[in-house]
């Protein structure tokens, strides 16, 4: 297990490093010189050269990359060419907001999917079980931002019980913070919950056919008890894999949902960066998002190995 952990950790570090190269190389392709853009068309060549030197963009790309990636290791994302403010703290602030959004969405998805998926599997012959399957199929077809718009329409426009957007920091007013996040959480969580319900259902269905459930019943358990004690943990093994993929999907979904609800998260920062042609900011946010996806995959792989003794 330790060996596996070390190997997997090495893979994580290596892929993060390669991802950093890819992100940097990609953004280096961006047409236009940041110094020229910053100074406008009427700048003198001398002023541009001076600014270029200040930005460090006059140096060879390899040196620039080492500089940037070296900074990343210390949490320094550089200073924006456009706003002249350090990027790291901005990303830090926004990351917290996005993380709360994603984890809340995941919690909603799990709260929906585990009971419904299990029920749909156990009662797969009942009308209600079949109905859950059908509804989840429809849920998958609704993108998170559309779910967001629908929820705003119902709860903000019609019922007027929740705000249609905006974000109040927790420290300012915990109640408003919660009210502001309920709809974003629901939009992310309900859609992913629909996807997850199908996986939970099929995992539980698979487990229900396993011989060890019959063994558990032969020991004197009822069928519910057998499923509870022996089935759910076994069913969780394939579901955890999907959960990892979903966290990554949620992270990206959050980018869009932040737009719908005007929440100042990483997605908002990224899109503003692109709009303002803030190269270094975009580079930093993309790197953080990609690293987050890689870390999620790492955690899922490790969890998978912890859950299943056959893989240890």
């Amino acid at each position: 297990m330790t060996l596996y952990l070390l190997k997997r950790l090495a893979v994580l570090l290596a892929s993060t490093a390669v991802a950093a190269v890819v992100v940097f190389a990609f953004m280096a392709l961006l047409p236009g010189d940041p110094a020229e853009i910053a100074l406008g068309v009427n700048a003198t060549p001398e002023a541009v050269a001076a600014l270029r030197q200040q930005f460090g963009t006059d140096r060879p790309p390899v040196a620039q990359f080492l500089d940037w990636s070296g900074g990343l290791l210390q949490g320094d994302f550089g200073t924006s060419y456009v706003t002249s403010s350090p990027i790291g703290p901005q990303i830090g602030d926004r990351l917290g907001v996005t993380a709360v959004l994603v984890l809340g969405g995941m919690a909603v998805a799990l709260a929906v999917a585990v009971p419904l998926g299990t029920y749909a599997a156990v009662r797969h012959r009942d009308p209600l079980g079949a109905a859950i399957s059908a509804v989840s199929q429809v849920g998958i077809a609704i993108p998170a931002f559309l779910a967001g718009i629908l929820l705003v329409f119902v709860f903000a426009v019609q019922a007027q019980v929740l705000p249609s957007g905006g974000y109040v920091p927790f420290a300012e007013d915990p109640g408003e913070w919660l009210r502001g996040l309920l709809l974003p959480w629901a939009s992310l969580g309900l859609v992913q919950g629909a996807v997850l319900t199908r996986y939970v259902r099929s995992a539980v269905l698979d487990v229900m056919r396993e011989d060890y459930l019959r063994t558990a019943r032969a020991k004197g358990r009822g069928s519910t008890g057998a499923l509870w004690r022996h089935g759910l943990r076994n069913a969780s093994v394939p579901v955890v894999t999907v959960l990892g993929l979903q966290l990554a999907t949620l992270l990206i979904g959050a980018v869009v949902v932040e737009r719908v609800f005007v929440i100042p998260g990483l997605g908002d920062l990224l899109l503003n960066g692109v709009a303002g042609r803030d190269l270094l900011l975009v580079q930093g946010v993309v790197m953080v998002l990609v690293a987050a996806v890689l870390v999620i995959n790492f955690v899922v792989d490790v969890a998978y190995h912890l859950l299943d003794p056959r893989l240890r």
Partner: protein
Amino acid sequence: MRGRTNAGLVAGGALVGLVVLTAVASFFWTPHDPTLVDAAQKLREPGGGYPLGADKFGRDTFSQLMVGARTTLYVGVVAVGIAAVLGVPLGMIAGMTPRGWLSELIMRVNDLVFAFPALLLAVMFGAVYGAGTLTAMIAIGVATVPAFARVARAATLQVMVTDYVLAARAAGRRRPAIAVRHVLPNIGSMLIVQASVSFAIAILAEAALSFLGFGTRPPTPSWGRMLQESQELLFSTPRLALWPGLAIALAVLGFNLLGDGLRDYLDPKLRRIR
């Protein structure tokens, strides 16, 4: 059980067929020019030649929906095409030489690309080359390559141990010949299923990108952008969000049902178990 399988397939096929028909029809006829700005028709209620009303620029919603179907299919076909053309050969190579360095390299690169979701790629492409339908399609396509490569590899691994491939190899047939004659036809059904599922994901991605302003550019109609334009009017004219939302959901539902239905239909093993 057989009947239920077919019901999904039929419903999926019908929905996909509806989208395709609408897209084809839009080449020949739409009630109005979908891009025609007409201040006199601003936020016009449904009726009288405007079956679903008009938006804030006076453009006919129904005509925009019809042409939007065309955009959706166009993006889906190109993106899935890119993904299949790149992903399938790579996956087959990885599956036919499972222990080779090339296979290892392909799968590692695959994992790396997997860490760049379609939306992120599209934003990056958009930042570099400018946002538009083309960059969106390429981004979605590239991001979908790993899915095809994985399915192709897994299916190829299964086919490679079957008796007919072993026989062909024993008879001295070369790898490319085996790939074309035996592997491809036998993994075809899995790939068709994957294509259908990927198509649904591509539609979702295009809608999200257009919603964010990184997809289809105005004035070309797109369901995702229709939603984005309607968001500020949600309090006064919610129907403007309803129709494109419904269109996206039905199209995605259609391709998902079609994929599931095809999976059950093409794979008798699965059909028996489910």
